[in-house]
């Protein structure tokens, strides 16, 4: 039986009818049409579906819709302030932090979350902060560089 899910997505209150075990990933992509959140492995290994829930990094493929009731959710669509990109997004563009782009939304949310917790991370902290996000284009060096540069701006 469907339930009514009430949550705040990128600052906007949303109400939608969902099955309680629907994955938040599918609710975001298919119900709310926010397709910036990507599905990679679907089992919590790759981080492509990362979103922020009440300020904490979460794999949206592992979150049943019921547990998102009342949550404040930030997806990649909510990282920029209108037309102004976040410093992490600017740095990914400038320093080549993306190739195919599949891991990029999750990488950016993991990086934004890391910088909120640790504004000036060491390289080891950057590597650890992004350890749950896999890039299959082997672009890690440029991704780490982009995150380091984002802290300088």
């Amino acid at each position: 039986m469907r339930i009514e899910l009430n949550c705040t997505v990128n600052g906007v209150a949303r109400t939608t009818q969902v099955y309680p075990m629907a994955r938040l990933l599918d609710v975001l992509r298919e119900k709310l049409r926010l397709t910036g959140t990507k599905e990679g492995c679907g089992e919590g290994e790759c981080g492509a579906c990362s979103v922020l829930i009440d300020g904490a990094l979460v794999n949206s493929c592992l979150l049943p819709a019921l547990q998102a009731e009342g949550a404040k959710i930030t997806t990649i669509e909510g990282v920029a302030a209108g037309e102004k990109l976040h410093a992490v997004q600017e740095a990914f563009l400038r320093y080549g932090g993306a190739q195919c782009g599949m891991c990029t939304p999750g990488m950016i949310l993991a990086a934004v979350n890391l910088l909120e917790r640790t504004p000036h991370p060491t390289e080891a902290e950057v590597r650890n902060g992004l350890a749950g996000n896999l890039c299959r284009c082997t672009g890690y060096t440029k991704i780490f560089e982009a995150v380091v540069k984002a802290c300088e701006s």
Partner: protein
Amino acid sequence: MRSYVPAYDLIAARNLEHALSMIGDEWKPFAGGTDLMVLYEAGKLPHKKFISIRALPELRGIAVAPDHVTLGALTTYTEVQNHPVLRSEFPLLPRAASETGGIATQNRGTLGGNIVNASPAADTPPTLLVYDADLELISKSGSRWVPYATFHTGYKQMDLRPDELVARIRLPRGRQGWAHYYRKVGTRRAQAISKVCFAGALRKEGGQIVDVRIALGSVAPTVIRCYRTEVALKQEPSVADVTLAQEIAPIDDIRSSAVYRLRVAQNLLAEFQSLLSSS
């Protein structure tokens, strides 16, 4: 193949009493979901009715008393890493928590969930064995405490009735002066499930080991405390590796081989011995 979403039911527990009145053969508890959702997504979650206990405040929080530190079963891996008393007195626990999954998993995954998922490859439960943890199991008919060392009775088998819930994990304090060692061996430090994981702690007096605990993951049907190896370390350290080989029972599976696991377990024991003899 993915599961059929409408076939599953998940309801939110209104409070602990409500949860305990529901949990049994029909309704199973659902905490952080980091294990259950993986099975669900793979079409391998046979049970279909769950009650979410994640929001229950009674099962959260870390309480520090003079003799014990008690963790609510819903304590997340992130909370374990951030707690100052755990970091100073039970350092293997936050260390293992930091190597369990990635940050997103650590934010959702719970200690209690990890315990009842009962994977022999779990990275944090060996540290609970090293620290002599006790578990509080609650149901609508009451509460009982059991030593964690006897909780797992076989592969995915536990001393836990269908109507019971792990409520709290209690660690006795007073381990000042102990030396600690933890090492997980897997394909990669983050995310990867262990091939072998080793947790150990010991206390020496006058160069002699007077107290020692060793526990391993991924080398037996359950996480395992190695009592005989501990005795060997105290009485005849030169044969401890042989004793360890007799005490564990690694197998070949998708992640590693029995031969490799045995060799690595012995190497980790040797590293534990050498690090601690130099300390």
